[in-house]
């Protein structure tokens, strides 16, 4: 998947992959993070 130039909504999970980590990854691939949030499901 080519992320460069794409807008991304990063939804993470506390016990999985948190949104900050997702956002960092996609930014490094050239995407713009328009919203990020981490959720706790317990």
């Amino acid at each position, binding site marked *: 998947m080519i992320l460069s130039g794409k807008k991304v909504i990063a939804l993470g999970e*506390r*016990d*999985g*992959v*948190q*949104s*900050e*980590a997702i956002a960092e990854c996609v930014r490094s691939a050239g995407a713009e993070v328009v919203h*990020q*949030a*981490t959720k*706790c*499901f*317990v």
Partner: protein
Amino acid sequence: MHFQTQQLPVIRATRYLLVHAPDLVRYGSKPSREIERNAAQLDLINSHLRSYEEALAYAPNQVYVGGLYPDDLKSVAVPWFGHALENPARHGEFGEIMPEDEFYGVLRIGDSFDMVWLEENFTAEIRTRLAAHPLLTAEDLKKLGDGKSLGQLNEQIKKGAAIPLYLNKHRLVGCFLHGHDEDPALSATRLLENLACKVIAALSLRNLNVASGIPAQAVDFILGCGEEAIGDRYNPGGGNLAKAAGEMAGCVAASGVDIKDFCCAPVQALTMAGGLVASGLHSNIAVVAGCSLAKLGMKYEGHVRKDMPILEDVLAGFASMVGVNDGQSPVIRLDAIGRHNIGAGSSQQSIMEKLVTEPLTKIGWKLCDVDKYATELHNPEVTEPSGSGNVPKTNYRMIAAMAAIRGEISRPDLDVFADTHGMPGFSPTQGHIASAIPFLAHAQKKMASGEMSSAMFLAKGSLFLGRVTQMSDGVSFVLEKNRA
């Protein structure tokens, strides 16, 4: 870091309490919001509630109070709610499962502001049973009073001054009064949550005083680490449940304070207690947590959708005594505390490095040297129907992956590591309570019998829920068999 032997902090004992509270499920955050949107949801909820006998015979609940060891769940057929245990005991080795009617009485006993009104006939019914409770006194029973008439209860409820308390779905047995006309921090619902948190912590503490051999009068400090943050409209989280629970438990020589760190709080509190004992500031510190009433029925929609009973029908608490080295109790290794520091980053690998590999490396241990890891211990039977996954399993696979990255195990052995060094989730989804500490008493028992040498307790806190940071937090400690 070097401490004198007598300053080593140990965990003298840990005790738990479960309260079966099906008629309070309606006041859980999720159910109450759905009922407000659609009143028919209450009938749906009521039709999926369990009896006390069913909750008592539910294997994960028995693990929580010490009737079973966590790994015993591997041999209980699933679904666990469909395979009731035979002859389950109310009082397990580590605590009890209390029925709802008696809990209403305990709420009244712990009420310092005459907010809990119980109906007179109901009061008479529970008085005899509460008199037989090993942790309640004649002084407690006086606080029950004589009760109110049904007319008095209905009058308060009708004019909006109180919320009703039911038993067996439809019988009105009491009401809970608002603490202020305009203050949401003192609404009846909020005060019910807070008082439930206090009395469950207090009863756990009373049980702990007996179990630890350290009487209430000898406790010199209390750290509260439960979910609730008490206060009023000007300072909603400023209060101190630790001291309130200590008062009800008779810890007259103690002061106390609350520790807040979302689900990290209990493990944070235990490490802080260890530090305070090691420093010589305090000798007997009770770490206590009450329940999360707001989380009753949190995932009820998933349960109802799958035509399961609503499993989030219990309130949970615990109390643990941290004291000076007695030469027997397991030691909190203060030289192996894991901390998720601010600059650590938020990837799971970074978090696990901070919580697991770094502290173990400091004391020269490998990941395989820890017999058991206690992480988020939420019962998967509660979380999976709503799509929240198996939280303990996720964490154990991550720890196993760290062991594989470090070359301690091969990739095909990931599941074996997770199975051997982990355990099935068994804790009710009572927020902070589920984070590692439900295994404390089990670990202590295994260490006393020589079947276990060490366990690591690690917890993560969802700081981002408070909307002031995107961060989470994490903390861990190693508990080791006393080698004195």
